[in-house]
């Protein structure tokens, strides 16, 4: 296991092996996505209170999960990069940032579309919505910082510190926002009406969550491969790889 991880940390090996994984991951993404959408949009019964419009949940909830999951993952990789100085870890962090920001945006947007028929407003200053918005700001700050520093390595390391500071702060921000909201106004906004969700809705939700994870993996590996090539463009193996292809 360790040996494999160690091998994976070498850019060349990473490039080769992930090239083989991507078609499989992509295929699985499409299959789970279709299955999840079929069960979610067609098979699952309408909600007894929310009718059909609850179905946006099958996009909204997995996107919100991904938005948080990716941030934690980025913090994990930044930690690895700062401690063991593994180049690939920061390649993964940098490649994840835009994806994380898009999932956050998607969660906010679908939430707002869902909120309009349910709560009668596009946006309410609810604790969860506000935390998600702040998470989007954190992602955008990270992207702006990495874009502003010219040297790739320095940018990735500086971004890593920011991500780690952010991950310490996220729980604090989340709970302070929750506290702020509960003090200002009572729970005027009802969340999912039932605390426990029915199985016929839970299964498509979980399928969609798996599908989103697979999508993330596929795309992040594609981005990371491009990033690896770009960083290693002067090394012998990249030249060999593309020199060979061109001459063929």
């Amino acid at each position, binding site marked *: 296991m360790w040996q494999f991880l160690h091998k994976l940390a070498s850019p060349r090996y990473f490039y080769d092996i992930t090239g083989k994984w991507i078609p499989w991951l992509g295929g699985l993404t499409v299959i789970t996505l279709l299955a999840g959408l079929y069960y979610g949009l067609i098979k699952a019964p309408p909600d007894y209170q929310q009718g059909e419009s609850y179905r946006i949940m099958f996009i909204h909830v997995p996107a919100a999960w991904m938005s948080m999951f990716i941030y934690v993952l980025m913090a994990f990789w930044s930690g690895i990069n700062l401690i063991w100085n593994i180049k690939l870890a920061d390649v993964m962090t940098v490649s994840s940032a835009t994806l994380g920001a898009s999932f956050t945006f998607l969660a906010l947007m679908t939430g707002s579309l869902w909120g309009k028929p349910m709560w009668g407003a596009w946006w309410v200053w609810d604790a969860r919505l506000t935390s998600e918005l702040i998470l989007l*700001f954190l992602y955008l700050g990270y992207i*702006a*910082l990495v874009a*502003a*520093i010219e040297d790739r390595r320095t940018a990735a390391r*500086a971004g890593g510190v920011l991500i780690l*500071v952010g991950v310490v702060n996220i729980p604090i*921000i989340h709970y302070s*926002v929750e506290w702020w909201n509960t*003090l200002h106004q009572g729970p005027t906004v009802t969340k999912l009406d039932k605390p426990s969700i029915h199985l016929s809705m839970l299964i498509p939700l979980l399928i969609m969550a798996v599908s989103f994870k697979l999508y993330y993996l596929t795309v992040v590996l594609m981005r990371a491969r491009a990033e690896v090539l770009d960083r290693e463009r002067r090394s012998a193996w990249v030249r060999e790889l593309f020199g060979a292809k061109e001459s063929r």
Partner: protein
Amino acid sequence: MFQAFKALMKRDLLLAFRHRGELANPLLFFFMIVTLFPLGVSPEVTLLRKIAPGVIWIAALLAALFSLENLFRSDFEDGALEQMLLSPQPLSLLVLAKVLAHWLVSGLPMLLLAPLLGLLLAMPEPAIAALELTLAIGTPLLSLIGAIGVALTVGLRRGGVLLTLLIMPLYIPVLIFATNAVTAAAAGMPIAGQIYFLASLLVLALTLAPLAIAAALRISVS
């Protein structure tokens, strides 16, 4: 170790007093932003009283950010920062000295100006006292958190707006607890909970932020 701390603080304070003109700038900024609100929103006393905690705190937050921007700038440009990185003293301690010196010349004057602004915005007396207390705990917190962002952007030519983007989200908990305490005090409610929370945030920042600042400086300068 403590001597290095003291020496650096003394040097920074001396440097600040040699440029006395610059010292007043963040204060003026703080004052002017607050002045804009009655002009822009409404001079009506009940409304002002209601928005005063938020207005003063947001102004303090912005003033802190803008004054922080140059925390490491001149040291970075004349090479003193590299000497600090090379020195045998722990960098996090030196950084703490710089942040503390900076707070003494920028945060503390804000603390002295705040009651006047409170009066201008028609805040009741207990609220002004609470405002002072929250600023006393909160402004060092702003300096410590902000210094992380400054350290990350010190090598960049135009770090100003970027710094704001990086740091603003991290300031949100401070803003929430501080303004909440002031609003509660104005309504005659106890504020111990909010103050304790701010104080614990300060302790957390005092212990962790210097490490993050030092790590960020090492990355930025290398």
